[in-house]
């Protein structure tokens, strides 16, 4: 409203503003409403939800879905596994990406151009699923936790973002000054570069973390053992294959309609419980997004 009341504007300007506001509001609602609906549906009475009576506020408050989820050991095994894979995986990702990006940012490093090509080429060409699968199989990584952590632990896109950040925000004279004082590359990297790079470390750290958390493909291809299943595979069973109750009910049949309602409420709850960790860190990291993309897009 404030925008509309501004003085000194022509009628066509105001019309334009009004148009922008209406479209923006529409976009906002289309994105926000489904997310909001999931939240209210997860705490509402399942019959009211499934007959379309829950639209704007929770109705017939019920925590049945969450109770079921807390008793379901599959979800908690998946949760535990995914936390382990994500934390170890992200740690390794950062331990590999940050030093490599630092090296590629040093202009005096002779092999820089060649190595850049070595990394970037993999963005456009790859061996494909089958040769990769057989390689992982030969390395005896199938049905181990390592398959979530070691393969593809350097993401080239993140490597480029980090390299560009180092190039643009760590002045060249700094290393020369430190080198005269007898500082090695190791020391300079640890004591100067890392403390100055919190922004980019948080951005790519988040990218890696979210990637591990949401990774479904690795589990689907390489994991058969139920005890090693990551959260996303458990979610697939519940949300998509409709194996909502651990006993196997809820997939239709005679009592299908009845069971399906409860099943749906559990699904709404599962969506929230599994996405919660990301929602919690999201606001903290959000301010870096634009920066991260901007750094990365300077030079591809």
């Amino acid at each position, binding site marked *: 409203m*404030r*925008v509309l009341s501004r003085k000194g504007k022509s009628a066509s*300007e105001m019309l*334009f503003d009004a148009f922008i*506001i209406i*479209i*923006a509001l529409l976009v906002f609602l289309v*994105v926000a409403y*489904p997310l909001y*609906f*999931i939240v209210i549906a997860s705490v509402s009475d399942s019959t009211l*939800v*499934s*007959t*379309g009576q829950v639209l704007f506020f929770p109705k017939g408050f019920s925590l049945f879905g969450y109770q079921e989820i807390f008793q379901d050991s599959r979800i908690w095994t998946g949760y535990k596994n995914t936390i382990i894979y994500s934390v170890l995986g992200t740690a390794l990702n950062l331990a*590999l*990406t940050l*030093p*490599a990006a*630092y*090296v*590629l940012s040093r202009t*005096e*490093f002779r092999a820089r151009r060649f*190595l850049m090509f*070595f990394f970037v080429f*993999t963005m*456009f*060409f*790859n*061996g*494909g*699923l*089958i*040769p*990769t699968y*057989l*390689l992982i199989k030969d390395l005896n990584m199938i049905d181990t936790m390592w398959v979530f952590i*070691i393969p593809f632990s350097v993401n080239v896109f993140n490597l480029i973002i980090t390299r560009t950040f180092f190039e643009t925000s760590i002045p060249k*004279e700094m290393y020369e000054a430190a080198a005269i004082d007898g500082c090695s590359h190791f020391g300079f*990297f640890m004591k100067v570069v890392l403390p100055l790079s919190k922004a980019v470390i948080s951005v790519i750290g988040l990218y890696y973390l979210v990637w591990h*958390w*949401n990774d*479904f493909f690795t589990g*689907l*291809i390489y994991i058969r053992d139920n005890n090693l299943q990551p959260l996303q595979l458990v*979610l*697939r069973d519940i*949300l*998509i294959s409709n194996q909502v109750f651990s006993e196997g009910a809820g997939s239709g049949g005679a009592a299908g309609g009845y069971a399906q309602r409860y099943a749906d409420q559990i699904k709404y709850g599962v*969506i929230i419980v*599994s*996405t919660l960790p*990301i929602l919690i860190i*999201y606001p903290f990291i*959000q301010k870096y997004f*634009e920066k991260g*993309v901007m750094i990365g*897009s300077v030079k*591809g």
Partner: protein
Amino acid sequence: MAFLNSETKTLDRAAAISTPKKQTILNTFKRDYQLWIMILPAIAVVFVFNYIPMYGIQLAFREYDFSAGLTGGEWVGLKYFEQFVQSHMFVELMRNTILISLATILIGFPAPIILALLINQIKWKRAKKTLQTTVYLPHFISMVVMVGLLNVLLSPNTGIVGHLMGALGFSDVNLLASTKTFIPVYVLSDIWQHVGWNSIIYLAALSSVDPQLYDSAKMDGANRWQIIRNVELPAIIPTIIILLILNMGSIISTGFEKIFLMQNTLNLPISEVIETYVYKIGIISNQFSYAAAIGLFNTLINFTLLLLMNYIAKRVSNISLW
């Protein structure tokens, strides 16, 4: 910059003088050995997991032999490519893959550009921030949850969109299990999830437009719409072209995860694409050589298209990836 360069050169020269004779690979290696140590682990990981599989591509031309390992089987040339091209699945797979990718690009590609221009027009800071925070969020939802979301919301009997469809008189349409609705649901939900995130790069490009351009446009009496068309759109054209090249490079590769998760027996005639087929033939049925050939077929077309698009863009607009 010139100053910096000359300084590094002097330092190099000083190093060359202090160490007698050869300023060679050995010397620079001596100087840079710490850098090599720092980058070696990353090189090793990429070499093993990206380059060795590339070497393993020859599997597509060999008979897979369990005892002989990845590349030890008998050479059979193009046998598996011929088998794929002649198979009854070929036409269907190519049609589905191209249809889905084309729909994704045609409808999905302009969406973030329009959104970025829209967001850029909002002058009220708080509203702008709120909108941005909201539209970026779905990008972080996992594919499993995303498809699960579609399943519960679009269910014809119990979903909220299902009820809406019923109210509009389309109660017999099952959005989740029909060959007609698969592509629209796939493309629109993809836009819903990623349009915000993909708009960031355009917003970044828009924020670097020279403010003087706006001023002079206003001085010339341009209205807001004319500014969008003549100042802002030209400013993001390079970004648009680069992203278009990259998108075209993957025109026959669709997102495996989402399509795989959205597949069911009813929509399979339209939802079976090359990547899901490779998974089923290779990982499920263990026909490794045949699946590798299909995968390679896909990769080669993508790579050729990428090079072609890059070449065209270079000729037409002087913008290219490298």
